[in-house]
């Protein structure tokens, strides 16, 4: 730990004039997205919050607090040598698993709306362990993939262990149940395996083996089946299962090109399900219109591009896999959430990263981006950070 700290100081000193080593391109994008996020969450949650807590800014304040915390964490993490996470990955994964299990422990785990997704911390905080385990798993995978080298192409050493670890994590997530997070984690792991060079036949075989399992999980809970059928034909039952999708589509339609104006959405007034979390993008569509929607899509796309560029530039395989994992996690969540809001994918219960209300998700994503920045910095500072 002491060594790491020394390295940090050395590296920071080596790049004077830069914004404390914060990737300026990345930072600009993050600030823009966060600004849009806090505005939209405030607008979308005001009525709900004033109804629930008598304070319209209740959620906005919480989100603002999480944002300050997240930005602090991001700045700190951006200063830490990315190789630190190589050593930390296994303990973090273990911690994450324990957290994930704590969800089911009475008095510590909190049940909300039929799912166990939160853990109670001291001082009245709640966290979502599934947000934490996503990053822990990505770190573990990056470390493991970097170590495997060429043997990655071997089924027993390159493919199977990763799939087993992922399967265990996904199993716990599904127990909560959090189908959306499970799908995202699985997809990110597959992408990472693909990029690392796992044979395609292994991947495809794995994917095919996953299908009956997916199908079973998909139809085991009746609400998932309803979501699926609603996705296929929202107009078949517009007042029940198709209602949420249709309301979301209406939001985009009402927004038109320039939107109805910030704060003026009607759809957020209880037509949309969770307008401040999962469907905040629909509120963007109504209040800011096509212009706002395209702008937000582009911001996320640029952030993903920047992350992938960082991954490509990173000399160290661990850093590369880590940068790629973080980027694809954020990018995929954004892509899927937006697609869900626009009726391109069935509803899953996924937040829009950096935008949707949710402290854990926000802090974790900003932490991840901090790590991405640290990789960016270490790649930019040339061969100094590169290890044979």
């Amino acid at each position, binding site marked *: 730990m002491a060594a790491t700290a020394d390295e940090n100081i050395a590296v920071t000193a080596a790049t004077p004039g830069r914004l404390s080593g914060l990737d300026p391109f990345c930072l600009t994008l993050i600030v823009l997205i966060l600004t849009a996020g806090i505005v939209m969450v405030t607008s979308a949650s005001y*009525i709900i919050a004033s109804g629930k807590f008598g304070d319209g800014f209740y959620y906005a304040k919480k989100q603002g607090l999480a944002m300050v915390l997240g930005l602090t964490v991001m700045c700190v993490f951006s200063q830490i040598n990315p190789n630190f996470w190589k050593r930390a990955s296994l303990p973090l994964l273990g911690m994450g698993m324990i957290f994930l299990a704590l969800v089911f422990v009475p008095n510590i785990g909190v049940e909300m709306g039929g799912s166990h997704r939160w853990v109670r911390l001291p001082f009245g905080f709640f966290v979502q362990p599934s947000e934490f385990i996503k990053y822990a798993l990505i770190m573990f995978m990056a470390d493991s993939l970097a170590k495997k*080298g*060429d043997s990655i192409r071997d089924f027993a050493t390159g493919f199977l262990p990763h799939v087993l670890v992922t399967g265990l994590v996904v199993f716990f997530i599904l127990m909560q149940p959090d189908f959306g997070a499970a799908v995202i984690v699985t997809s990110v792991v597959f*992408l990472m395996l*693909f*990029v*690392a*060079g796992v044979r395609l036949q292994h991947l495809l075989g794995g994917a095919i083996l996953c299908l009956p399992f997916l199908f079973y999980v998909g139809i085991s809970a009746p609400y998932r089946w309803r979501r699926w059928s609603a996705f296929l034909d929202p107009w078949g039952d517009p007042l029940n299962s198709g209602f949420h999708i*249709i309301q979301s*589509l*209406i939001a*985009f*339609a*009402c*927004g*038109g*090109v320039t939107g109805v104006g910030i704060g003026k959405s*009607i*759809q957020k*007034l*209880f*037509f949309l399900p969770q307008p401040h979390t999962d469907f905040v993008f629909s509120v963007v*569509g109504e209040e800011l*219109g*096509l212009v706002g*929607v*395209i702008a937000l*899509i*582009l911001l*996320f*796309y640029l952030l*993903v*591009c920047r992350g*992938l560029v960082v*991954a*490509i530039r990173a000399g160290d*395989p661990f850093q*590369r896999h880590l940068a*790629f994992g973080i980027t*694809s996690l954020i*990018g995929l969540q954004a*892509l899927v959430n*937006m*697609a869900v809001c*626009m*009726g*391109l994918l069935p509803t899953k219960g996924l937040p829009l990263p950096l935008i949707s209300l949710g402290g854990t998700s926000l802090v974790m994503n900003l932490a991840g981006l901090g790590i991405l920045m640290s990789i960016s910095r270490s790649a930019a500072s040339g061969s100094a950070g590169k290890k044979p």
Partner: protein
Amino acid sequence: MYRDAKPINWVAFRIVLVAVLFAAGTVLLMVRAYRLSISDAEALKKLAGKQRKLVLHLEARRGMIVDRYGEPVAASIEVNSVYVNPRRISDKQQTAKVLAEILEMDENEALKKLNENKHFVWMRRRVSPLIADRVAKADLQGVFTDTEYQRFYPLRNLAAHVVGFAGMDSQGLEGVELYYDEDLKADPIPVTAQRDALGRPVMFTAMGEDPKRRDLHLTVDRNIQYIAERELEEAVRKEQAKGGVAIVMDADSGEILACAVSPGYNLNVFGKTPADTRRNRAVADTFEPGSTFKVFLAAAALDLGRIDPGEKFDCHKGLYRYNGVEIHDIVPHKLLTFREVIVHSSNIGAVNISEKLKKTEFFRILQGFGFGSVTGVDLPGERPGALPLPGKWSVLTKANIAFGQGISVNPIQLTAAFAAAVNGGLLYKPHAMKRMTNALGEVVREDAATPVRRVIKQSTSEEVVRILRDVVQEGTGKGAAIAGVDVVGKTGTAQKADPAGGYAKDRYVGSFIGAMMGTTPRLVISVAVDEPGGRNRTGGKIAAPVFRKIAEGILALCGSGPNQADRILASAESPFKKFSQCPRKKVKVRKGPHSGEWVVPDLKGLDMRQVLDICGKMKCDAAFQGIGHAVEQDPKPGRILKEGEALKVSFEDQQS
């Protein structure tokens, strides 16, 4: 290095592949966004409009009733009402206790209301803004306040029987309030708003004036009405009478300028008035007219050409046996000309005249005057009176009718018929509505003078007028004479029919019906005093002076002295009352030191409508007295008045 570089490049290549995947996803999202927001938007927007549409019904303000000059006689003002939703009250005991204290009601009674198994129960309606404010501040669960309109009659007793009143829910119950209820009543105004998914309204388009509102303009002149009521009341009191009716009507249009009914009552507390008092005797009560009916006998005889005005009739010295019945005259006469029979009101003469008429032709003319059927006046509860068909006439009926017995009329009917007899022979439908205007003040309906029919020839009418002029100058109607004014008229003293049969010995209706013929417009004034209890019983003694005083009052009101040659009282352009043309004062209402307090402005010289506006602004309880312009007020100008407190204002006519 070479072997090292190759796999790294492959990883980079695969990352680029993933980047392409992300790019494709991004493009897909954008295309979808474009289609949703632009190309496919119409159908979705239509759906949005449908699911967000909400039609609200806002309570509308009942139309105003104003007099001839637009001075309000009935207006709706905003008040507050308190209602509860018992199903949303958890602690009923506590709520009842708090409400009972604020609303000053019995706690048990309040609790009883809170225990009703309903969604909506009125706690107390029409409370002062102050109390409503305290209820709102108490912030009780399930207790709400609402704005309602309350009918307010600033002139209280004035023209009470014409105006009538509207009930708690703004429904017309009496008078023109009832007759024109369809026009005046305010249906809730549907307003299209947007709603949220829970059905609550979120956006309103601000509403201007209610397009369906109708204001009723009466033909009644409140100054003339005031004079008529004052004089009638005075006579009823002096003669210890049971009641009375005085009507002022435009002889050439049927417009009712005043309709005074005694006893009167305060419209603002109509609930405390017995139904007997609230009944509009001017239309709902019929009586046997007595001698005033000789006017129509004369008109019939002259019009049919059966009589020469100079023709003489034997009046049998006051006692005449006719078909086995004794007919008396109060003053015995020997021989009277036709003209004198009317002038001295001889019953025996009248019977002799009627002998010259055939049943059917006499009946036809009486029917022409409107007897036996309703006039169609726009006041509710009119009764037609009785005019028996000629086939059912006994040997005595024609003779009885000749001097006003055996038939019955209502006062408005009699007045309208008299107007037809003197105005040249045209019968007009009496009416109290001048016009109906909408919220912008545009006329939507007008009740113009429309003759119902010609009853008698012009020349007949002129002859009738000549005879009636003599009645006032030298006959029974001397009490109605005004020096220098062309007054015609006829007295009547009718015994009232006894419910047991025959006629009651000492129950009379003393009446006088006359007209000022030299003025513009020509005014018919009829006065009937019911059951005078004093020494005077005859119409000439009781009713004729009332006629004179009302006529003199009107002349004075119009600035026309009794001896003046110019007798134009009113024309189409200028009203009866020549108002002092002082410019209208503008008054600003200032807020007091605390919220809910106002600085009372100086109201002197303001008319009633202006004062009413100010009272509305200050949310105070207006108590008006008199008519005309404000002369006195309590509290005095500059004092602080709390909302809901009373502001007393006295009005006086500056000219009379």
